[in-house]
């Protein structure tokens, strides 16, 4: 709609923010990107997300939507004339929501433990992370994308974390491709799509960001 005002409050390195950028790109929605300072949070962020005070927040005609997967579902419903992100069948939709929720429960937390923990805790996180990726590989099967022939909800939930894989590998001293070649092949396939490549950040830049955070938290 020509009169739509869409703003995204975000942090460049956030995989949750990348999910929203990717969903907006898939729908061809024009929006204003607003980089947020999470150390000194803006009045706008605190007003738009008073409960969690986190990014991403999508502001659509002045009304905020928070939590990345909720935002992606909202984008799918508000701009429903193009590129459906969820299947139409209720059972398939439930399955998509289950796997996106699995990514939320496992990939972020375990990945975070890889770059913040040491010793046995780090090893346990690495194992859990690889096990989770293998389960996702199983769910993908022979399909090109989790959404089937086109990118869908689960792809949007997962593929932004690919930008953090290099950081996990380097801090965790392991090779994800060696353990999960199908997953890496899938991620690279996604990146061949323009909507994905322009929504995702450079893994090397993300790694520099992680190094900075590790120094800040006294982990280096």
């Amino acid at each position, binding site marked *: 709609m020509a009169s739509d005002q869409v703003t995204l409050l975000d942090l460049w390195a956030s995989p949750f923010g990348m999910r929203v950028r990717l969903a907006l790109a898939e729908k061809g929605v024009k929006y204003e990107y607003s980089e947020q300072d999470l150390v000194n949070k803006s009045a706008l962020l605190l007003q738009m997300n008073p409960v969690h005070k986190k990014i991403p927040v999508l502001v*659509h005609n002045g009304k905020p*939507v928070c939590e990345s997967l*909720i935002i992606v579902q909202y984008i799918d*419903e508000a701009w429903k004339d193009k590129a459906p992100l969820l299947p139409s069948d209720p*059972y398939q939709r439930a399955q998509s929501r*289950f796997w996106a*929720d699995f990514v939320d429960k496992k990939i972020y937390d375990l990945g975070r433990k890889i770059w913040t923990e040491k010793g046995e805790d780090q090893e346990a996180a690495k194992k859990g992370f690889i096990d989770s990726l293998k389960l996702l590989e199983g769910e993908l099967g022979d399909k090109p994308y989790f959404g089937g022939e086109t990118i869908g909800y689960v792809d949007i939930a997962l593929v932004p974390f690919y930008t953090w894989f290099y950081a996990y590998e380097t801090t965790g001293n392991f090779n994800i491709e060696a353990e999960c070649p199908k997953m890496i092949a899938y991620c690279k396939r996604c990146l061949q799509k323009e909507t994905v490549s322009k929504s995702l950040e450079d893994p090397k830049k993300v790694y520099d960001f992680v190094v900075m955070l590790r120094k800040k938290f006294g982990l280096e």
Partner: protein
Amino acid sequence: MSNEDLLLLDFWVSPFCMRVKIALAEKGLSYESKEEDLFGGKSELLLKSNPIYQKVPVLLHNGKPLNESAIIVGYIDEKWPSPPLLPACAYGRSQARFWADYIDKKLFDAACTVWRSPGEAVEVAKKDFIEVLKVLEEALGENNFFGGETFGFVDIVAIPMAFWFYASEKFGNFTVEEECPKLSAWIKRSMQRESVAKVLPDPEKVYDFVIMFRKMQGIE
């Protein structure tokens, strides 16, 4: 015998299972229920239907499994659209999903931490729990239900947690009614609904369960 083959893998005291039972009742659906012995030994059917988390509730519809309570309730709402549990507009739906997610992330843990905390830690846990309740009370506002005039998705996600509050109140030595009178009124109002009244267990039995669980976990 209903037209639909619906089987719920259940555990009597689980608020997550309760959500599914209330949703099925709201839609006027009949189903079979199988009580799982979560401490003695999970059934083959449960392990096969939910191999990743091995948890209840699981709803099997014509033999096909659905997992994660909020996702199951969403499925029930989409498969049997009348009466609707979610608002019709995309923004209203995003807000309902946000509050259901907030309840999932915060409420149950906060309530249980009160009775899980040994000694003086109870006071901190109680303060945290009351804060969560106050956020929800503010979200409720002057409405009869979180769904507005009608009982809906967020009410279904939240109300089963309420029968665990009694245990928190006893261990924390406070009442929800004193701290959050509007929320307390919502609890009473919701418990009068037939779909809720016929599936909620006796709070005293839940309290006894909590005592047993604490002993099992060695909390004193």
